[in-house]
């Protein structure tokens, strides 16, 4: 896989696919809000008006139960929540890749032990475990990140192990082994490049997980409740009985943002999938071919012939 075409190929792929484009635009928008927004809205903790005011010209999204500006809290929360989400998404895949590729590449007893480990972590329910760990540690972004990594890495390890296992049996890996290349070199130079698209997909998927789980934990009061993040915004909305006083503006915008980011990431991922999945690619070409000749596509699944 040539390095030069890497970035531009992905870029072109995003632009060609409608789903991926809309996902990317949505994410870019939130990234912009997260980076530049906090300078525009002022102090989110400042008490600016009467508590629980509905949206008005002065406070576009109203005020919280404490009299803070909801919009300012939302914008500042975007930065923190997205930063933690992306960082955790990345680390979770790194840990998963390390364990999964080690298990799949070396096989035997190493594989048996590591597989057992991630299968156990997959079956133990994540949220209760996260809560128990988080409760013992001092609250803060580091604790939150650590907890999300501990409960989130196993799925990636499982997928990457399976992928490594199938790559391990390919001829080019066998050739590399015969040539006497070191295990480290084979893994990083031969096997990893074939999994680029899978790894990118996993980082995106793990980020969705990390944002959702983070918001859930903070909603429970396990984050730093004095910080301003999406999760703590919801925590305070629930604590101030926003629902029972009818103050929808204190919780509705935050949830909408969580969903929009999650949806944007999912769109980007499914767009990538259609680009990198040879089966879907072939089907698309076939349908275009039929359409050009004035036929209607019927239900069929084209089969990709393996040429190696």
């Amino acid at each position, binding site marked *: 896989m040539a390095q030069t075409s890497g970035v531009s190929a992905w870029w072109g792929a995003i632009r060609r696919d409608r789903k991926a484009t809309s996902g990317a635009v949505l994410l870019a928008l939130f990234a912009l809000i997260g980076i530049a927004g906090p300078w525009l809205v002022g102090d989110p903790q400042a008490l600016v008006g009467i508590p629980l005011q509905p949206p008005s010209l002065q406070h576009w999204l109203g005020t919280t139960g404490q009299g803070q500006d909801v919009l300012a809290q939302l914008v500042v929360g975007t930065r923190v929540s997205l930063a933690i989400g992306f960082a955790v998404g990345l680390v979770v895949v790194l840990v998963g890749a390390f364990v999964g590729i080690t298990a799949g590449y070396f096989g035997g007893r190493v594989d048996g032990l590591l597989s057992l480990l991630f299968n156990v972590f997959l*079956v133990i329910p*994540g949220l209760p475990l996260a809560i128990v760990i988080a409760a*013992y540690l001092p609250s803060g972004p580091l604790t939150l990140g650590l907890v999300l990594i501990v409960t989130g890495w196993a799925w990636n390890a499982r997928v990457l192990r399976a992928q490594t296992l199938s790559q391990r049996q390919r001829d080019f890996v066998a050739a590399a082994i015969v040539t006497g290349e070191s295990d480290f070199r084979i893994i990083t130079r031969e096997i990893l490049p074939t999994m680029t698209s899978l790894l990118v997909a996993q980082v995106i998927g793990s980020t969705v997980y990390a944002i959702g789980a983070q918001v859930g934990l903070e909603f429970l009061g396990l984050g730093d409740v004095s910080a301003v993040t999406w999760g703590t915004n919801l925590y305070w909305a629930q604590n101030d009985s926003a629902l029972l006083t009818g103050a929808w503006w204190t919780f509705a915008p935050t*949830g909408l943002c969580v969903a929009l980011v999650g949806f944007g990431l*999912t769109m980007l991922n499914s767009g990538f999938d259609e680009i990198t999945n040879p089966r879907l690619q072939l089907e698309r070409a076939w349908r275009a071919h039929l359409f050009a000749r004035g036929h209607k596509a019927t239900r*069929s*699944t084209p089969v990709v012939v393996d040429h190696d």
Partner: protein
Amino acid sequence: MRFLLRRLGFYLLSAWVALTINFLLPRLMPGDPATALFARFRGRLGPEAMQALRETFGLTEAPLLSQYVTYLGHVLRGDLGISVAYFPSPVSAVIGTGLVWTVFLAGSAVAISFAIGTLLGLAAAWWRRGWMDTWLPSTLVFIGAFPYFWLAMVALYVFGFGLGWFPLGHAYADDLTPSFSATFFADVARHAALPVATMVLATLGGWLLSMRNTMITVLGSDYVNLARAKGLAPSRVALRYAARNALLPSVTGLGMALGFVLGGSLLTEIVFSYPGQGYLLVQAVRNQDYPLMQGIFLVITLAVLGANWLVDLAYLWLDPRIRESAS
């Protein structure tokens, strides 16, 4: 049989790992766990009672290994310690009251969501590129991107607070006593409707996509083409031939999803002040009630492991290949 025994062995091992995590966490964490744990009791208990409590928890000066053995012994006898928030009730009694509600809520949500989602996925794959296939998946994926508890908040706001169609919380009306009567069950159903509906809505997309994607692959396979060529009724081809095999990955996913849905259910319960484990969990977090938190973790883990074993039974029934290789 060998398959089931091997799975049982795996679940026992997982349970042991959960127990060990539970044992090690308070001892690995910074600071003296015993002090942190008992700081809450100070003033309420005399020194002798504190010593007795320490021994119940196994947090003594004894070597780690013997603490571990004591701990396992206590758990096996169903002794999970004393709750701080509900002092002096034992944790097992506190958890027991909420467990039924959580299992009921999460169980019915998973069952309903799995059934409807799978059927929709089947339909989407069968009428490929119809309106169902084009609009339903992306709509449901969008809804699924919302945090469960946020959907719950919106549902409660709109249907409970705004329209007044459903009660605002709790598992049944205050003026009713639990009994095996139609009125009581109807009331429980009315209270469960909103929480279950939000969880179903949030998880539907996953089941739909999983079923749709496998179904498309299966529908392109030779044996389905042969069934079609033989002139079998389309419904028979779809249900008896294709769907049964396409169901397998979804059933595998069911085991994984259980833990996830249970987590979401805990948060949903909080929004609806539903008297299950989620509500207890919040009390535990607020009061730094470590024994209760750990007890809930343990009980939920065991519930998920047990449910996974039931999923394995279903898998065995669906997939004759495993039955063949096992016998």
